[in-house]
């Protein structure tokens, strides 16, 4: 393979000395080294990314497990004084935050899931590829990048202007969260509607079914599992939001079950508020039951609950997507 090579058409083509192009042994070795180096780097990238993940989960688990018990889950923060024990022998808990989180998230769902689904229905089923539809589609994408604090400011300003200054309520938080949730719901629904075969729409229309019923009973029904799992993932995303709720839903130590009036605490806000207390006071005459570091311990425990909730939601979302997907042939 070393001799100068004549070409197939030696009369026209330049003669080529392939030695010039053949790799030197050292270069071949260098390439191999580079290949291995890149492989190592890539694996390393992965390992490096795992470190913080494991650290976050581990820290939360270790710190959070200490105070996570039934008492913590079944009480709110009323009558919790400094680092002192409450009558039930606990140190207060997150019941009000769990209720707040559920209601506010539920509120956000009720607002954003119908809107999101109907918007996707408009984009896929009605608008075709019209210019308006393309614009909306683009804006939905853009909307999914709105910073959560801006969503909070928006809800705050809107309620201040429409309802009255200084208004804080769980519902205001729901509105802020819906702003973050709608684009996710629209996008997953769009994806799901796109993969519903056109055959089914035509089959239904050909049976003399109106378009509305075709969409609700055939198209959405077929896409249901995808939409449900997408919505669950959207919930998982907003359930951990803190900043917008600080300025919209406020903070309260007792249980407020009324979404539309009065302040409400959610789990992430609870975590932040307890973190903000940092230390609790224990007067000199307090017994051994008084714990100075209790606020941080509560913060970690609530964080653990939050992570568990988010992970469970994620898991459910995935399972729904997998198990209830319409069987393919």
């Amino acid at each position, binding site marked *: 393979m070393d001799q100068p090579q004549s070409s197939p058409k030696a009369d026209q083509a330049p003669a080529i000395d392939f030695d010039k192009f053949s790799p030197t042994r050292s270069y071949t070795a260098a390439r191999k080294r580079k290949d291995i180096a890149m492989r190592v780097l890539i694996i390393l990238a992965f390992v490096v990314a795992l470190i913080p993940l494991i650290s976050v989960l581990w820290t939360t688990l270790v710190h959070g497990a200490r105070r996570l018990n039934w008492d913590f889950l079944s009480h709110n923060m009323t009558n919790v004084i400094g680092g002192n024990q409450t009558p039930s022998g606990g140190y207060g808990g997150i019941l009000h935050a769990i209720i707040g989180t559920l209601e506010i998230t539920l509120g956000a769902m009720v607002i954003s899931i119908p809107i999101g689904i109907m918007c996707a229905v408009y984009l896929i089923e009605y608008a*075709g*590829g019209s210019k308006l539809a393309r614009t909306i589609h683009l804006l939905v994408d853009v909307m999914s990048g709105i910073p959560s604090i801006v969503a909070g400011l928006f809800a705050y300003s809107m309620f201040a202007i429409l309802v009255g200054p200084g208004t804080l309520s769980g519902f205001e938080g729901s509105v802020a969260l819906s702003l973050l949730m709608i684009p996710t719901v629209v996008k997953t629904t769009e994806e799901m509607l796109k993969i519903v*075969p056109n*055959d*089914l*729409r*035509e*089959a*239904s*229309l*050909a*049976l*003399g*079914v*109106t*378009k509305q*019923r*075709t969409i609700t*009973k*055939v198209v959405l*029904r*077929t896409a*249901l599992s995808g939409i449900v799992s997408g919505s669950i993932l959207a919930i998982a995303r907003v359930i951990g939001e803190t900043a917008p709720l600080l300025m919209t839903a406020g903070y309260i130590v007792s249980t407020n079950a009324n979404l539309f009036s009065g302040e409400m605490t959610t789990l992430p806000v609870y975590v932040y508020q307890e973190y903000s207390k940092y230390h609790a006071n224990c007067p000199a005459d307090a017994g051994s039951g008084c714990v100075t570091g209790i606020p941080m311990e509560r913060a970690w425990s609530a964080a653990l609950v939050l992570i568990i909730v988010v992970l469970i939601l994620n898991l459910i979302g995935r399972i729904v997507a997998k198990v209830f997907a*319409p*069987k393919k*042939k």
Partner: protein
Amino acid sequence: MGQQIDVNHLNIYYGSFLAVEDVNLHIAANKVTAFIGPSGCGKSTVLRTLDRMHEITPGAHVTGEVLLEGKNLYAKDVDPVAVRRDVGMVFQRPNPFPTMSIRQNVLAGVRLNNKKIAKSDADDLVEWALRGANLWNEVKDRLDNPGIGLSGGQQQRLCIARTVAVHPQVLLMDEPCSALDPISTLAVEDLIEELKSDYTIVIVTHNMQQAARVADYTAFFNLKAVGQPGHLEYFADTSTMFNNPQNEEAERYVSGRFG
């Protein structure tokens, strides 16, 4: 009983593209009419104008008339949804609703339209439609299994059952057997033969033997060149079409010399 269809000066557009030009055609009641022709000549397109399915493609529209027993389907006051209840359609690939059982599939046309129907009536209807589609014996023991669990040929017959269950006057079929194996094809062809006593049937097929076997009349569509509009080249009763066509293009086509 089936109804007859008259197509007058029908031009069919996709947006500004004229896909099929000036079709004039009489489709006799309670007969099977086959549409044949080379690919892209507009067979499916014409078929889909007969129940206004054409319109669901964005930008698609027609000029001209399609008369169902004398009543123009494209008249202003006609709702396409009503048209489609009178004119049923079966598609190339079987498409049972994947979320529904066999029984629900058959009842889909009724149920989706929010009609209340007593359980016993529903049972009767299911049996009647499935028998009509020659499927009853094969599925009567598993009506609650999902429709997509059936074989391709069974699925296609299920789709036919689903269509007849809404009592249309006319049945349109777009290459109903092209995705089926020979045995299933035979079952569907037999079924068409039986159905024509109750319905007017229009069938698009690529398979000339099939047209010869099942159709009473045959319409041959053609197109001059790709990108040109298709048109109805020749219409005749089936034996004429295949044995003694009075049209040169049709003759070349049915004898397999082009297309």
